[in-house]
């Protein structure tokens, strides 16, 4: 079983920053540079999105990034070589976030095996809820990958119990009713949900969706969150500077450094 994610959370002295980028955005070469930049800037966990043509859980910023990556030719084989290149030089935990079909087409066994060989530590599949999760979790565990599962404020206590039984690494708490995208508000239902999860499980809880500001980070960590996931806010820095790779790296690095500085 993967240990990088577990070690990172058990050794934490402050909430962790999970920084998210879209693999292959704006293109394959620049994408690796961007992941390195996020790592150097101090992200505790890196989440790379494997693009899918129909990302129903994503808002406009992520949709556009996914479109850029797909237009640049991103696919699952390139994803694994990207992760391999990154892993050759860094021990920072890395999680893949994707949708069911790219995994299903690769074959569940092959996808998780290749992900593990490349050096990924966890895989989250946005459109695989509890009902469908069994074969995905089995393939993950067989390959030594943490199956990252989602929880939302609409998840009943009964479902929550079944989800924490199956999940590995950390719980991805969907911190807003809706899709990914910068929001800036603190969601009281998410605070309540963090407390609910902490009451029954020792797995790290990490909210994501709509998080970009320090007051959100503080509110969620005070409620017991073990970290936060920031996606659209970082990916927007990429999207705003397509064609200007130098500026892009600087902006992404600055954004991540500012986020890390905000987390206390």
């Amino acid at each position: 079983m993967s240990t990088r994610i577990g070690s990172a959370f058990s050794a934490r002295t402050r909430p962790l920053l999970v920084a998210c980028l879209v693999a292959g955005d704006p293109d394959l070469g620049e994408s690796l540079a961007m992941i390195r930049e996020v790592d150097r800037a101090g992200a505790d966990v890196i989440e790379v999105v494997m693009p899918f043509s129909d990302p129903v859980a994503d808002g406009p910023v992520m949709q556009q990034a996914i479109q850029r990556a797909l237009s640049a030719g991103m696919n699952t084989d390139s994803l694994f070589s990207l992760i391999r290149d990154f892993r050759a030089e860094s021990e920072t935990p890395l999680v893949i976030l994707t949708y069911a079909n790219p995994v299903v087409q690769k074959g569940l066994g092959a996808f998780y095996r290749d992900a593990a060989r490349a050096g990924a530590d966890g895989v989250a599949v946005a459109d695989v809820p509890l009902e469908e999760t069994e074969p995905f979790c089995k393939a993950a565990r067989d390959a030594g990958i943490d199956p990252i599962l989602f929880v939302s404020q609409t998840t009943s206590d009964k479902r929550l119990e079944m989800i924490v039984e199956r999940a590995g690494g950390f719980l991805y708490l969907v911190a807003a009713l809706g899709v990914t995208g910068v929001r800036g508000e603190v969601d009281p239902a998410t605070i309540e949900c963090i407390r609910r999860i902490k009451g029954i499980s020792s797995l790290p809880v990490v909210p994501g969706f709509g998080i970009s500001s320090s007051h959100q980070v503080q509110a969620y960590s005070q409620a017991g969150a073990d970290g936060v996931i920031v996606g659209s806010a970082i990916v927007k820095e990429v999207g705003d500077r397509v064609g200007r790779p130098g500026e892009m790296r600087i902006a992404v690095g600055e954004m991540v450094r500012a986020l890390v500085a905000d987390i206390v």
Partner: protein
Amino acid sequence: MIESTRFGEYGGCFVPETLMAALEELEEGFRTIVPGPAFQEEMDYYLHEYAGRKTPLTFCRNLSRDLGCRVYLKREDLLHSGAHKLNNALGQALLAKCMGKRRIIAETGAGQHGVATAIAGAALGMNVEVYMGEEDIARQALNVARMRMLGANVLPVRSGSRTLKDAINEALRDWVANVHDTHYLIGSVVGPHPFPTLVRDFQTVIGRETRAQVLEKEGRLPDAIVACVGGGSNAIGMFTPFLGDPTRLFGAEAGGEGPGGRHGATLCRGRPGVLHGTYTYLIQDAFGQILESHSISAGLDYPGVGPEHSYLMDKGRVTYREVTDDEAIDSFLYLSRTEGIIPALESAHAVSLARNIAQDLGKDDILIVNLSGRGDKDVSQVAALAGDCL
């Protein structure tokens, strides 16, 4: 946790966890509210008094003479709104109302399902918002105007290919954000469980009526039935009561430009995968990215198909064949001139396949075509395309 969500290996509920509570609630409503006498009585009123059921099963004299067998058309084109879509829209809108939802969202490609949902919303006093791709809004101005007249709000979709597939994505995103007061009224037997079953059950009135009508008129079951398949709701609705019978069942898919060209023939040419919440045949690349479909008929222009069709094909119970754009136009004109009935371009695909199947039938054999909708919406498109032939 929802159990038993599959047709063989197909179906399931591949949606974000946030939506599962809504699907559980919907399934509960489907199991407890729909079978109850109060719901059934309301549904009867809307289908019979309001929508104009039952629709005729018309014996077509000219077609029968020309094709050399006994040809019947199931006249869903005569249903209020001009297509079978209303059966499902009324059923789901009524269920949503019983479940205390105040707002209905829907997706639409050609606009037929959007119009049906707008009608159901107006009849039942519910707010309706319809997602429609920008491309489709430009191509289907008449139906956009109809929806607006009926009081629905049409929301343009600018993401992805700006067509039906993207309208479904956008409706799902809206639903995730508004699950508490909103029902997503999906227009075909696609999407996550329980939608493929729910929509099938509301459309099965087509097949139930047909079976009783043909037994009354002919004293026996038909030899073959043909329906067009995009998502596949009119076909499933027609086929379901006949699945246990010896009747041969045929589905006509959009062959588009024909062999080697762009198409919407998901079952004939696709491969299983996951899209819009369900495991089913899809048009996709080797890495699982969904490709754009093509059909002259917007209602068949979808890169997925209802999961039960995937199951029925693998099981060998239903035979699916492709009909090209050109063949569909030819049969659009053929039916118009032979019988004086202008079919929807979707239904013209079924007519075309029926003409082929008729070649293997004898003069006493019974062939039924599900005429899922009327062609008023397609008249200007066909006139432009077939200019020289008119």
